């Protein structure tokens, strides 16, 4: 029998993938006698001959651009379709050359979708495709939502669609049909492999799937369609959904008359760019459907999956993440191709030194392929934890195992994510204790070592500050970043708390502030409170999922860092807990915390391995904003939904 890797179909798919990588960036008029010149500081030639030289043609004459790190290849989505894959300009800033390549958001939609669908189609089919009316309706509905979303986010999309007039109905007809085509084929590929796709969950950190130029992930379409189909089919679910409808209407109503916007930067795809009634309304539906879709999909499958294969895929994906990250950091061409063909939210790092240290001798965080070193650190931490927990699932030790583990260890170390390292150690220690492998002396040594480890990372000198100072540091930072004439409602309230009248709030705030100080979050969380400006209703019900425009635009704060005087930039809150409170209010935050606590407590008795995974994720996301990246979001949602009780006897999958 032929190995599946060498059959005709696989060979054909690989060939098509290679063609999709090479051909689009080789197209140009080769009969125009314009021969690329060697790149020098005299860029006249490239200023005159725009849209006449393809990227690959240029690289043939300038092969050094492929591997020399003072070249940066950058896309330009706002260019004519005729210019696709061709050089639209070269600039020199200092010693660095920026080579701009014409791309088109519309072409990207098709090219990237085809590439990803073929890549996913390597996963073995496990069922037939059922073409039903409810499935078709759900696809049409999701595509309509996306079109309305584009209409409501015109400020963003008008800079992405070259010469597509977004004030014309015809443009939305085009977009609707494009998305319908993409979602139809996504639905086919996804649904015919739905049981097997979950094993490839770790590969979501490689195939990130963000359309270049769009504020929508490729995955959003599939998962939102799953949820919609489920809601269409299930009457009782529709009844429960009435409450969600009202909540979404509330969020949208709060945005009436506001017109905030935010430059989505590295959180594109999971951040609404405009804050107005329509955008909040449709975006909230899209996000709620996506989250519900992931939940429905994974909840029914996780209990039946083969842990051995999942573990192996976590390790394999880790190898590729490091490999692609390193290649991308040293080779501008790979960096560009990574961005385009894997749908990255941000170009991979150009820092080639994985173990670099800063001026004070501290390790620099290396993010490699990922947009965030924090989230990739969590990934590697989780990989090692999963390996440890399911180490007995397979008795055969392959040659691949040791290098894969070393690479995951390197990834965790390079990311400089201390919280992931400590929680990994804690979880392994708890597992060892649970298995009864540690006697009391070892338990004591382990506890003392863990505490010493924690103190080492907190730094002993930080423990010498008074409680009065540490508990107030966060709010002080929030006050120092704000201006007296424009204080947020949160900082106004928290900064002027009467400790006698509001003893309980003061108590929790002091603890929260102290924790923030010790884990180096005083500044970031202080800035969050300096910006957080909810009214009474928003405080309890939030402003809608993945809507950050109001947070970043409502309140004016200092644009330079208080401590260093350097530009503040786009600093995220670095806490998924704070983000949940922003999106869903105190009630939402309380419900999420209660749900997680309740399930973790239940799992502690019934499934200790899953409890440890849940504990690892919970501790880490409190101090990171990983839920703003789709790869992390989907991974965490899969594990969190697996913690929800599910009838194991029910073998029938409904999605």
């Amino acid at each position, binding site marked *: 029998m032929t190995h599946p890797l060498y059959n005709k179909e696989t060979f054909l798919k690989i060939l098509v993938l290679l063609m999709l990588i090479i051909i689009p960036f080789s197209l140009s008029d080769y009969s125009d006698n314009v021969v690329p010149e060697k790149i020098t500081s005299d860029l006249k030639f490239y200023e005159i001959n725009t849209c006449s030289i393809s990227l690959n043609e240029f690289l043939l004459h300038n092969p050094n651009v492929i591997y020399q790190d003072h070249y940066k290849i950058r896309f330009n989505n706002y260019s*004519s*379709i*005729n210019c696709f894959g061709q050089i639209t300009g070269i600039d020199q800033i200092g010693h660095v050359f920026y080579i701009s390549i014409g791309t088109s958001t*519309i072409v990207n939609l*098709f090219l990237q979708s085809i590439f990803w669908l073929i890549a996913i189609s390597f996963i073995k089919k496990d069922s*037939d*495709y059922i*073409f039903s009316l409810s499935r078709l309706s759900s696809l049409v509905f999701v595509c309509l939502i996306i079109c309305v979303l584009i209409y409501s986010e015109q400020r963003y999309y008008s800079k992405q669609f*070259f*010469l*597509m*007039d977004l*004030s*014309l109905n015809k*443009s939305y*007809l*085009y977009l609707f*049909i*494009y998305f*319908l*085509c993409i979602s*139809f*084929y996504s639905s*086919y590929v996804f649904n015919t492999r739905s049981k097997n796709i979950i094993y490839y969950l770790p590969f979501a950190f490689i195939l990130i799937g963000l359309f270049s130029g769009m504020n929508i992930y490729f995955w959003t379409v599939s998962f939102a369609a799953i949820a919609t189909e489920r809601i269409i089919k299930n009457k009782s679910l529709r009844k429960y959904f009435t409450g969600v409808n009202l909540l979404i209407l509330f969020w949208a109503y709060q945005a009436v008359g506001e017109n905030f916007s935010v430059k989505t930067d590295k959180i594109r795809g999971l951040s609404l760019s405009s804050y107005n009634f329509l955008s909040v309304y449709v975006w909230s539906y899209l996000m709620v459907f996506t989250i519900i879709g992931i939940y429905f999909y994974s909840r029914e499958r996780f209990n039946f999956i083969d842990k051995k294969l999942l573990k192996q895929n976590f390790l394999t994906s880790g190898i590729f993440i490091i490999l692609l990250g390193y290649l991308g950091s040293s080779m501008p061409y790979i960096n560009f191709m990574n961005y385009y063909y894997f749908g990255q939210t941000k170009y991979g790092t150009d820092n080639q030194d994985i173990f670099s240290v800063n001026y004070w001798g501290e390790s620099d965080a290396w993010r490699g392929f990922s947009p965030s070193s924090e989230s990739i650190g969590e990934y590697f931490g989780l990989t090692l934890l999963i390996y440890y927990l399911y180490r007995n699932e397979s008795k055969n030790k392959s040659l691949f195992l040791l290098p894969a583990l070393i690479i995951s260890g390197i990834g965790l170390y390079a990311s400089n994510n201390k919280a992931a390292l400590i929680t990994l150690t804690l979880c392994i220690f708890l597992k060892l204790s649970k298995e009864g492998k540690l006697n009391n002396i070892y338990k004591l040594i382990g506890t003392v070592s863990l505490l010493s480890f924690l103190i080492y990372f907190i730094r002993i000198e930080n423990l010498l500050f008074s409680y009065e100072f540490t508990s107030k540091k966060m709010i002080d930072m929030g006050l120092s970043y704000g201006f007296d004439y424009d204080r947020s409602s949160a900082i106004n309230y928290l900064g002027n708390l009467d400790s006698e009248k509001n003893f309980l709030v003061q108590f929790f705030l002091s603890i929260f502030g102290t924790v923030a100080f010790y884990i180096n979050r005083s500044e970031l969380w202080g800035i969050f409170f300096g910006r957080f400006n909810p009214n009474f209703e928003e405080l309890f019900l939030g402003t809608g999922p993945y809507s950050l425009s109001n947070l970043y635009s409502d309140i004016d704060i200092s644009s330079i860092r208080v401590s260093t005087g350097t530009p503040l930039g786009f600093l995220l809150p670095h806490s998924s807990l704070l983000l949940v409170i922003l999106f869903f209010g105190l009630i939402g935050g309380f419900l999420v915390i209660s749900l997680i606590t309740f399930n973790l407590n239940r799992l502690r008795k019934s499934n200790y391995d899953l409890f440890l995974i849940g504990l690892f994720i919970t501790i880490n996301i409190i101090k990171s904003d990983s839920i703003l990246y789709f790869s992390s979001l989907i991974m965490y949602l899969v594990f969190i939904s697996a913690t929800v009780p599910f009838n194991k006897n029910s073998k029938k999958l409904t999605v």
Partner: protein
Amino acid sequence: MSDNNIVSKICGAYPPGFTDTEILSNPNFIFSNDPEYSAVQLFDSQENTVFVNSFLECQHYVKGGWDFLPIQRNEDDFFDIFMYISITSIIFGVFIIRKMKRRTS
């Protein structure tokens, strides 16, 4: 999009106090140059080109069908092509899926 919107898009915003003049009824009408108006190049569907030197002249030509920009037309053609390819792909996909289903059942 209304005629006025198309005119504004191509010729620029209507000048304050602009009064429309009936040109077609006057065969001897001569457009006078507006020194404050920067010339606009217009194209017809055959890619013939003309430079207009006043808002009134620009409006007249645009309303007469000189509203094409070659690059815009090019993009529109691509948008149409992608739309037709998408529709054909969906129909083709549905057909194949049904055929495969019939074969397996």
